[in-house]
């Protein structure tokens, strides 16, 4: 093994070998180094610190069980806690043959177990197979995510077209279905939050809001003369109008395909029962209270609210406040008090939604959450494409850093760790990784404590608009004090830029 791995081979995947015996590490490295980039750790603590920094690029861990400092089981526990185990396969390699040990390791998520003495051929094959399996899985996750998105998109599109056809025939703009969809979703999200036992999930909420678009589908059977009559309907006409809910339901019921589909089932409930009343005085079935499915109960509130706040041939639009008052005051029917409670609490959001002329049917956030939910249920994780892109970016960055003759550094807040480029570490006479740098005596031998504090204060003044900090001080380079300029960029941990992830930067000679 030559220790000098200056240039990183981008084509080779990285295998982390963790074993306290140098001999054992060498033997494994020897078997694998033709095909893989080998990273070595001599105990569990080292392994965890390597994983902390580089878990995105490690393709596989070969893990010994009995080690000082931190043993294999403890490493597995950390990998579980940090969820690294979901993306990094672990092959346990040990002479340990006590059943309890092996069982515990499997329970903690190891993919394979190789017993010593091993043969070189099997080790290589099992490593290749395990990595291929995981790579395939990552790709599959990406494919599944794409397909879910495509499917959602086409379903939404079809339902949109269908509900718009119905609406245009009613002489409405098509906005009604969009509004009902949004209001339904907002109320249901509140409901799920207030009543966690309701069984509502992100995906059932999406199904109900989407199905809500079909609530008036039965109106296609109502003559236009009645539908678009400007004046009051006669009793006879109103009786015909009222058939739209049961007609819509039977249309959905008689679909020869998709009858078991949750979307169709929900659309059926909504279509049939969105004119039922909580007191049992609605139509067509005079259902009472919670005999009316929650989906239909929520859509009926949403339907009434949007009808009140929209202009119709026979009425003007009421204001948001007036509409809420009318509904809560029982002027437009009786509703489930829990849903009215949700309506009240989401009043501000509803008001904003009302101002939207067109809305995305399924927000990107919704798609993401649904995807996550489905992926979680299938034991899959982050879409593979994203992960691969990230891996590539990290590999490129590492490579460029390794060949640049510059003092570059990265500082991460959590855990506090300073990483210096290989070249930089040599120039400064420091190790490449320094944990808890603010209290590191080694670091103070290169930069004075005062300068370090000033630098840290300067960095903390960085804002999202002005994330770059420049600071000048003396640094010991190649053993001599030199006046230098440090330029660094603050990296934010979250989208709203309230938390700092750390900084990246470079040292320039200012003399």
């Amino acid at each position, binding site marked *: 093994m030559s220790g000098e791995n200056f240039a990183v081979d981008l084509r080779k995947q990285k295998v982390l070998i963790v074993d306290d015996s140098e*001999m*054992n590490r060498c*033997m494994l490295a020897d078997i694998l180094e033709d095909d893989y980039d080998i990273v070595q750790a001599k105990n569990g603590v080292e392994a965890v610190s390597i994983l902390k920094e580089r878990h995105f690029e490690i393709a596989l861990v070969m893990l010994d069980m009995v080690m000082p400092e931190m043993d294999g089981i403890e490493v597995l526990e950390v990998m579980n806690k940090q969820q690294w185990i979901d993306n990094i396969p672990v092959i346990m390699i040990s*002479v340990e043959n006590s059943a309890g040990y092996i069982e515990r390791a499997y329970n903690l998520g190891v993919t394979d177990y190789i017993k*010593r*003495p*091993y*043969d*070189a051929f099997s080790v290589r094959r099992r490593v290749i197979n395990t990595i291929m399996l995981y790579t395939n899985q990552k790709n599959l996750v990406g494919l599944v995510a794409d397909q879910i998105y495509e499917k959602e998109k086409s379903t939404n599109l079809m339902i949109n077209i269908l509900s718009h056809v119905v609406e245009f025939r009613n002489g409405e703009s098509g906005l009604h279905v969009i509004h009902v969809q949004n209001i339904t979703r907002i109320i249901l999200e509140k409901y799920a939050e207030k009543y966690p036992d309701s069984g509502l999930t992100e995906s059932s909420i999406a199904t109900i809001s989407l199905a809500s678009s079909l609530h008036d589908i039965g109106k296609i059977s109502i003559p236009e003369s009645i539908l678009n009559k400007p004046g009051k309907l006669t009793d006879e006409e109103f009786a015909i109008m009222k058939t739209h809910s049961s007609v819509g339901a039977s249309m959905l019921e008689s679909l020869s395909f998709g009858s078991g589909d949750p979307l169709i089932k929900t659309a059926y409930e909504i279509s049939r029962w969105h004119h039922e009343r909580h007191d049992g005085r609605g139509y067509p079935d005079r259902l009472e209270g919670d005999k009316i499915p929650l989906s239909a109960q929520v859509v009926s509130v949403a339907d009434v609210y949007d009808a009140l706040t929209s202009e119709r041939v026979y009425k003007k639009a009421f204001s948001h406040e007036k509409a809420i008052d009318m509904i809560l005051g029982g002027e437009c029917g009786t509703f489930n008090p829990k849903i009215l409670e949700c309506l009240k609490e989401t009043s501000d959001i509803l008001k904003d939604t009302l101002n939207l002329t067109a809305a995305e049917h399924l927000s990107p956030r919704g798609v993401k959450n649904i995807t996550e939910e489905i992926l979680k249920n299938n034991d899959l994780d982050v879409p593979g494409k994203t992960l691969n892109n990230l891996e590539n970016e990290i590999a490129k960055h590492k490579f460029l850093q390794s060949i640049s003759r510059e003092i570059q550094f990265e500082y991460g807040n959590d855990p506090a760790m300073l990483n210096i480029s290989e070249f930089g570490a040599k120039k400064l006479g420091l190790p490449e990784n320094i944990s808890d740098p603010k209290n590191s005596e080694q670091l103070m031998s290169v930069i004075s404590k005062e300068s370090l504090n000033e630098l840290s204060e300067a960095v903390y003044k960085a804002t999202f608009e002005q994330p770059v900090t420049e600071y000048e001080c003396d640094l010991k380079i190649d053993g001599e004090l030199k006046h230098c300029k440090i330029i660094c960029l603050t990296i934010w941990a979250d989208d709203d830029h309230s938390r700092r992830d750390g900084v990246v930067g470079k040292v320039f000679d200012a003399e």
Partner: protein
Amino acid sequence: MKAGNHMNIKEFYNFIGEDFNDVIGRLRAESRVCKYVLKFPDDKSFDNLLSSMKEKNYSEAFRAAHTIKGTCLNLSFNSFAAVASEITEKLRNFNDTAAIESDTELDGLLAEASEKYAKIISGIEQIDAPEQ
């Protein structure tokens, strides 16, 4: 090159009473076997085992014996590995100091291990090392 070198790697395995075919079957390349056998004296696990026993640091002794067992199995030093394995099992409950110290077989096993270790080391010293 040291004086008295005269064995090749196969002869070495014969000398210590082990099966060369077994190790070459697993590690595949003679050069690889040779490299590790020559590296074996650098591995300080056996010294570590003896000194840890002396210092009554039984957890460290357990790990050392465990490591020896693994390494030796990989090199097909099977009879040495067998003794190391017996020692490993006797030290597995390393917190039970009383049981370890009253174990009458342990000293005998350590003596046997030392003997086998010495034999392996003396054999390695006689191997004609290939030109590096």
